[in-house]
């Protein structure tokens, strides 16, 4: 027994002794990873709590929201808030607000993609006199707060009779007025090997062909990041639609959301929160569909930059 036991014991013992420091480090790693996950989960919970609160509150009656009520769940669970929210405001259906937001967001994405990529191509690949000056000026507009240009811009559109149309909200997107996106694409394009378009040029391709067949396909990550950001920014924009749109039938969601709150009378927080939940869904879906590309876009840019 003892003779039998000794070798069998010694056999695992010897490697065990040998691997001992490693097995310790495995448990240490496990502990570490456990702690890491616990901390990460706690942080996630803290960060996501407002969202959870919002979703939970959308099912509560108005007088149980906020105030002294800290409980997440209400016994008076109901979909009433969603029914009220979908009823719309002042005779305008909520679907109209959704459609308007969608028109503006899709318009912004299309406009930005078209205009920013073309401008970026010019800045990154074409040598023209004053290029660096124009590039500098474009970057300088990044430093110009929107609030500074509101009034001059408003006067221009007012004189042109374009107030209460979507033109003031979209024209800038089609004219590459979002310097941030142009800059993003220029940086991306500068990191694409110049040999590619040189090769195309030798084959007889002009700028249009190089841009369309070589650059655009390679820029997919940058284009997708741009789409996502411009979609979300446009979806959430409040001030510009507030200033330029007058007719409630043309309002996008952020304007409609505010109408549930009224200091001088009663605020319907329930309906407002329910509508916030609904308003969040498209952005969430958009993000979920494209999130793979966001990560890809950011990481490729990081690697190449």
């Amino acid at each position: 027994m003892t003779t039998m036991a000794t070798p069998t014991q010694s056999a695992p013992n010897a490697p065990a002794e040998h691997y001992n420091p490693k097995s310790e480090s495995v448990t240490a790693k496990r502990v570490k990873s456990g702690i890491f996950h616990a901390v990460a989960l706690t942080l996630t919970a803290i960060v996501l709590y407002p969202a959870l609160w919002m979703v939970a509150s959308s099912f509560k009656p108005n007088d149980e929201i906020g105030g002294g009520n800290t409980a997440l769940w209400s016994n008076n669970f109901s979909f009433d808030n969603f029914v009220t929210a979908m009823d719309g405001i002042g005779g305008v259906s909520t679907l109209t607000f959704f459609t308007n937001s969608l028109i503006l967001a899709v318009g912004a994405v299309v406009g930005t993609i078209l205009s920013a990529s073309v401008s970026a191509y010019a800045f990154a690949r074409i040598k023209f006199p004053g290029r660096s000056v124009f590039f500098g000026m474009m970057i300088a507009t990044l430093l110009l707060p929107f609030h500074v240009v509101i009034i001059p811009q408003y006067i221009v559109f007012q004189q042109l009779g374009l107030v209460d149309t979507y033109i003031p909200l979209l024209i800038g997107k089609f004219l590459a007025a979002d310097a941030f996106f142009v800059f993003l694409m220029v940086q991306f394009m500068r990191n694409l090997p110049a040999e590619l378009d040189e090769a195309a040029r030798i084959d007889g391709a002009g700028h249009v062909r190089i841009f369309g067949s070589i650059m655009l396909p390679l820029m997919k990550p940058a284009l997708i990041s741009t789409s996502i950001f411009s979609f979300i920014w446009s979806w959430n924009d409040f001030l510009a639609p507030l200033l330029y749109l007058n007719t409630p039938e043309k309002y996008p969601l952020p304007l409609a959301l505010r109408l549930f709150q009224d200091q001088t009378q009663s605020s319907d927080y329930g309906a407002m929160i329910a509508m916030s939940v609904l308003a969040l869904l498209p952005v969430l879906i958009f993000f979920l569909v494209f999130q793979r590309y966001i990560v890809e876009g950011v990481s490729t840019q990081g690697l190449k930059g």
Partner: protein
Amino acid sequence: MINRRHFLTTVAIGTASAAALAACGTGSTTAGETGSAENPVTITYTWWGNDDRAERTRKAIALFEEKNKDIKVNGNFTDFPGYWQKRATEAAGGGLPDVMQWDLSYLRDYGQRNQLLDLGTVNINTDAFDKSLLPSGQIRGKTYGIPTSTNAFAVYYDPAKLASLGIAEPDGTWTYDEYNSFLTEVGSKGNGTIFGGTDYTSVWWMFNIWLRQNNIEAFTEDGKLGFTKDDLKKWWNTVSDLRGTPAIVSEERVTQLAPKSPFGSNVTATEVTWDNFMAGYLADSGAKELKLVPVPSDDPDNLGLFLKPSMLMVASAKTKYKDAAARFIDFMVNDPEVGEIFKTSRGVPASKTQRDGTTFEGTDKLVVDYEKSIEKYLKDAPEPPIVGFGTLEASFKRISADLNYGKVDVNGAADAWFKEAEDLIKQNA
């Protein structure tokens, strides 16, 4: 969010240049363009408010169009903070809507800068208005706003809560000492779940009423402060014994409950504020019934109360349709059927014609009855507040909060507020 002061400065510059440009144009006729039934003119009307107000206003507009075939009204609405951002931009761009719902605190800003039409030059019937009320829409003899409705200050209480604590309902004839001991009684019997009320000395308008009770003006005619630092100290000391006791709900709690009020959240049994907040409080708190009584006063014959326009109607100085705008304003403030549509959701109708033509029930009746009950105490409404009044009111609230947090004492608080107020008045002079 935009910094309001900077924004207004920008607007002021823009406005000045716009005004200079406009001065080059030709003068328009007095009545403006008029329409006919076949070829009606379209005026724009804008207001702030929620879904409920939008529904009511649409009904009123439909009624107006039916009675005035030569005018079409194009109605738009936004929320309250957005409303003023939008107006500031439009004023700078010269594109204010023809007719607008207006708030008293913005009347002087826009009136002094000639953005609003002098309604004395057009035909609007104000015979049915209480004479003490009209001056609040006037600046230096020009009428810029016609009140649609009034509100008055009051003490709200929840009778059910008082009954559950075994406290008798107040009758509204009380001195400040009596009011304080009432708050203390509620607080001590409330056992940490129900407090007496919020700190009433943190409310600017309550201070204003107290000044009136002591025959002191809040602002002099030339837009300076009419009271002294000692007056303010005396006021804030009124509740010095109550701070930190259950008579007054703590500032921490108030902040936690925001944006709802402690009263709307069923944390306090009383609240001192405008009587037209009734519907909001009922909705927020879910209480079955709330009651109103007059504010305390150490002089039983002078309660310092007044009617304030809860809302006004104004027209743009640049409107092309003065006559149509005037007819619409006249209709909105005087027509009894409009009263039937709005009830007290804008406040109690200011015009007697409209008030008498409206049947009030339930909550509406409570508010109307309250205003009737204080009729004999009413004095002239104050002139439109000075430019930048909103900032002063907000800093009054903020410094009072610091007082309740114990960050400053009454002397420090009075110094701090006076410094801010004097700077602001100098800036806008």
